[in-house]
């Protein structure tokens, strides 16, 4: 069990740079290749986090209709 909670406040220094890097990673890729990249990225990040409770919170936060 984790006592951590998912960070949902700004946490990435240089947010614009990161976002540009994320878009750049997809540049020139077709839909299938982009989807595959996203899938690999999710798996790599999830493994880095490694905390099952945080991952469940992240899945809930990302789910559709979570407007609050």
């Amino acid at each position, binding site marked *: 069990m984790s006592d951590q909670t998912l960070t949902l406040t700004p946490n990435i220094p240089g947010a614009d740079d990161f976002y540009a890097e994320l878009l750049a990673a997809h540049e020139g890729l077709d839909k299938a290749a982009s989807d*595959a990249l996203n899938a690999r990225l*999710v798996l790599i990040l999830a*493994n880095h986090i490694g905390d099952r409770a945080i991952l469940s919170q992240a899945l809930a936060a990302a789910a559709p209709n979570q407007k609050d």
Partner: protein
Amino acid sequence: MNKIFEIPLYAYARSADQDAATPARHRVVVVGAGPIGLGAAIDLAQQGIEVLVLDDNDKVSFGSRAVCYAKRPLEILDRLGCGKPMVDKGVEWNIGKVFFDERQVYQFDLLPEDGHEFPAFINLQQYYFEEYMVNRVRELQQAGAPIEIRGRNRVLKVEEKGDHAAILVDTPEGQYGLEADWLIACDGATSPIRAMMGLDFVGRVFEDNFLIADVVMEAEFPTERWFWFDPPFNRGQSALLHKQPDGVWRIDLQLGWDIDKEEEKKPENVIPRLKAMLGDEVEFELEWVSIYTFQCRRMETFRKGRVLFAGDAAHQVSPFGARGANSGLQDTDNLVWKLKLILDGTADEALLDSYDFERIHGADENILNSSRSTDFITPKSEISRVLRDAVLDLSEQYEFARPLVNSGRLSVPCTYDGSPLNSADALDGPARSRPGSPCPDLPLGDGYLLPRLGDRFTLLTINAEAPDEIEESGITVTRLALSTADDPTGMLQARYLGDAPSGVYLIRPDQHVAARRPAYDDTQIRAAIRRAIGKEQ
């Protein structure tokens, strides 16, 4: 030369029951002489219970069918007196390779834990498996045990009568009636008895088909499990190559659900597929080919009065993970000692509720694991395929992704957590031997622990005093006294004590832990014995 599966091993012979004026009554009738039915019958006969096995055939399994046997079932088979010939004949393997598309993405080693008498897995054709069990039946008969197999005795009708089951049997010489105090239906995935009694399956249903081929070849392939995701020779599907004894290779090719089974089975369609897989230069001979359809589901309850269901008759899983025959043997391992206590009048029929609880728990675990494997192997949506392929791609380069690859989670024994037969865990010991767990094996003197437990209630004491024998509610519990002073491998300490200085384990006849405590406590142990036979809440 005839193959073993072409020779009648229990040919039809007329029985006196066929000429009886009224149906003959038997204590237990087992329907089906497959691995599970024979396992149940041998176990019963070893415990002195009269048992009759009926089978609609007279030969062992045609073709290899169930090929992969795990450690726990081998331990059970050893208790039944036929584990060692299976290990001697079987092929042991530890290395698995995973291929994706045209390339190998990684390989794994099962790295079996030391200090177990039996290997993690062996591969053995089901016909050998059944032959060794039939040999064991013959051996028991020689020794005067009350066990009989009747070949070409097909069950036409079963009626549950409250205190017995009435059975109508068809033979080459006509029909006859039988009665059984208890009937164990081990009549396979299509269980005619289940159908006759109108007991249907519940749970998630899906269907897939596999082309299963036994191929004889002199090939350089090593003794490894090779699994392909989406290979060029079977696009969009999976494939498995596994070695069996006698130079026979087992090949499973997934076909999907919407196929023409008769067409796919024809050699002119099978051989090109196999050539594409093995390479044109490999010489091979097709020994057996079959289409296997599976579903993942189970019966709502494994008992209907005096009729009990075990093995594939009660539950079905996908072939990934070797959870079919392996879990069926754990069913009868769980069932037979309970049935014996009931037949002896020591326990009430209510004890069988725990068969349902414990083995449904096992079946659900198997169905969960095999459904997850199936979801990985056969992605059901575009995004699940994208994620699956991402895992496989990453697994080639990064170790972290390999545990996510699911080509079948190989069968491990079930721990009966929450069973009504368990007493609360009173020892601060290792989780692996908590109440409900199958006892982990370990070296003991010149042998191993599990054969010392046998098939009776045992009180295992480690660095603890206790009576050598306890009589409680008709049960005799015999002590097995061990000490960590005589534990050169340290495995007794590690597997049964952990950080605790001493321990007392009450172990059931199926070698599962019923209770454990730091020291002997007469009141608590007696309560635990009663609880383990369903006589105390």
